[in-house]
């Protein structure tokens, strides 16, 4: 069995700042991580490999430094890693990205037939959840999104049964393999790699494919040219006018401090005091 996991290297969004003057996102110095949602996809792929054997290949489109993200996946236990990297990919939106990744997955399929493609639910920097479905469509794969559990995989009959989170409940879906699964967060827990894997990953020569190697034929469908999406504006939400207040608590009992704070809240929200007193009376 051959499983391909598509991952993305993203800036750690918890550490991103918006420039107070220019309103642009400051990426400098922000650590790059594997998109956290993708790790649930990778772990699920590794679990299938543990159970059924086979090979897990991780693939990523991005700049040369995204190699670190792929090496990290190798340390968790992926067998092979391919970085699809080419200057002409710059400025790609989800349409162009799914085109490039689909071509690369097809290329991997020429080396060894691909049974399942995994992606995360979405990325934390784009939040579109469009690339996975885009790849499935382009490759003609059955599409299973928001999967929370793989209930059964029958390799003999090329069928797979999964649980999918849906509005108001869980859907149980059965379909044919090959398929593409976008994995839901919180569905599993990434393993802690043994030391041997860490050293193996540090040494691992990640394969690098440019657009030719990835088998991309139509250059008008990649990069900025292939991206109809226009970002019209980026803005940071306006901070709220009122800031948290600090209050000195020296020489005061906790009771005094609490009463003081409550009094201040009531002064600002007179109705609140009335409501609470009314409730207390009942």
């Amino acid at each position, binding site marked *: 069995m051959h499983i391909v996991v598509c991952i993305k290297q993203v800036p750690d969004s918890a550490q991103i700042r918006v420039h*107070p*003057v220019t309103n642009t996102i400051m990426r400098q110095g922000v*650590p790059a991580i594997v998109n956290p949602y993708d790790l649930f996809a990778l772990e699920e792929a590794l679990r299938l490999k543990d159970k059924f054997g086979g090979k897990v290949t991780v693939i990523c489109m991005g700049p040369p430094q995204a190699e670190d993200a792929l090496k990290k996946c190798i340390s968790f236990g992926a067998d092979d890693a391919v970085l699809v990297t080419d200057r002409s990919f710059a400025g790609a939106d989800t349409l162009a990205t799914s085109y490039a990744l689909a071509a690369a997955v097809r290329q991997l399929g020429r080396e060894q037939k691909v049974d399942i493609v995994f992606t995360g639910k979405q990325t934390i920097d784009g939040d579109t959840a469009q690339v996975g479905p885009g790849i499935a469509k382009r490759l003609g794969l059955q599409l299973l999104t928001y999967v929370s559990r793989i209930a059964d995989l029958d390799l003999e009959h090329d069928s797979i049964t999964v649980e999918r989170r849906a509005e108001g409940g869980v859907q149980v879906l059965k379909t044919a393999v090959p398929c593409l699964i976008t994995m839901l967060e919180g569905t599993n827990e990434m393993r*802690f*790699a*043994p*030391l041997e894997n860490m*050293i193996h990953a540090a*040494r691992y020569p990640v394969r690098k494919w440019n657009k030719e190697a990835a088998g991309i034929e139509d250059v008008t469908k990649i990069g900025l040219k292939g991206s109809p999406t226009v970002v019209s504006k980026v803005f940071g939400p306006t901070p709220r006018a009122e800031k948290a207040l600090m209050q000195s608590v020296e020489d005061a009992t906790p009771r005094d401090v609490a009463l003081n704070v409550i009094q201040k809240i009531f002064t600002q929200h007179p109705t609140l005091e009335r409501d609470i007193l009314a409730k207390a009376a009942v």
Partner: protein
Amino acid sequence: MSEKFDVIVVGAGPSGNAAAYTAAKAGLSVLQIERGEYPGSKNVQGAILYANALEQIIPDFREDAPLERHIIEQRMWVLDEESFVGTHFRSDDYNKPPYNRYTIIRAQFDKWFSSKVKEAGALVICETTVESLILDGDQVVGVRCDRQGGEVFADVVILADGVNSTLARKAGFHGEIQAGNVALAVKEILFMPQETIEARFNIKEEEGVVIEMFGKITDGMMGTGFLYTNKDSITLGVGCMLSDFKENPNRTSPYTLLEKMKAHPSVAPLIAGGEMKEYCAHLIPEGGFYAVPKVHGNGWMIVGDSGGFVNAVHREGSNLAMTTGRLAAETAIAAKAAGKGFKAKQLASYKQALDESFVMKDLHKYRDMPQVFHQNNQFFTTYPELLNRAARSMITVDGIDKKTKEKEIFSNFRKSRSLTGLAGDALKLWRAFR
């Protein structure tokens, strides 16, 4: 699997990176193990980079290292509650490349340094904690990590695991760290537009200013404050001896010190409008010469903060760290070439090289300094106040003649500190600095 390397370096700070880089560059097989998510993720420093130590390791580092600003002006402020007396030294000489000192942001700098280590051929693994050393008799032969199958072996283990050096303590190479031998420093990085910084500090693009502060801002404790200009942020911090924090009668906490410093009328306008980007705290080994433990043994060497290599008087640390890392690696390279094993005897040239370098020479020169300052807190309270009072008195024009003012100043000094006290303090200072 139990793989064996020539050298294992524990830690990816300046000393560990210097050691791993030097050893790998010479063709040794090197495994470097870092606890943090990536090199630099847990590392804290002021941070000033002294070019010389790095130049000896990577001569052309200026080409691609993430450097913030080169320092062209050094200010020294002695503060009381509302004023400061100070000196500024600014020279266009510092504008002639190659520059001597830079402000850096460690998270970025360490990542860069680590990329050089990898380029040199070392294997770097992160998010892995070394829990103990593996001993064969009294010979260190490897390390044990917190991962499954976590044993890995080497001829030499270089301990670059920082000020706490739990490894060295566990192995009994040195004792518990003493509160009197470490300073606790806290700092903030405040974001500010580049133009604002350049206007406020009267500097051009890429030029930087350092302000060293001492006096009342440390609330009578032995310590200093500092302010550095980065490209589009300001680093502001203060540190005092841990033992002083423990014994402080006002129970002043590090963060209140920093808040007070930020509110000081001389500091506040410089940082006004800054948005806090980072807050960190760090222990700094400031015990000096007498606190340096045994630095090598059978199959091991200690470098950087783990060995207490910090010159507290001149606020130097990372340069000592890099130098000790380099010297340890060179020792390992020589021992490997000699082929006579890696016992303490073969690694003794590390100690010798340290003694001959500025590292131990400087630590020796200031060996009594920590004691002198520690036991005489008048240097941080009485004198700064007297100095500021004297300056105010002389500069304020109020119809009182200067002779009377001089007398008053002198009598103020006499009142706060007896003549013998004054003479004694001068003598102590002279002896410690000598």
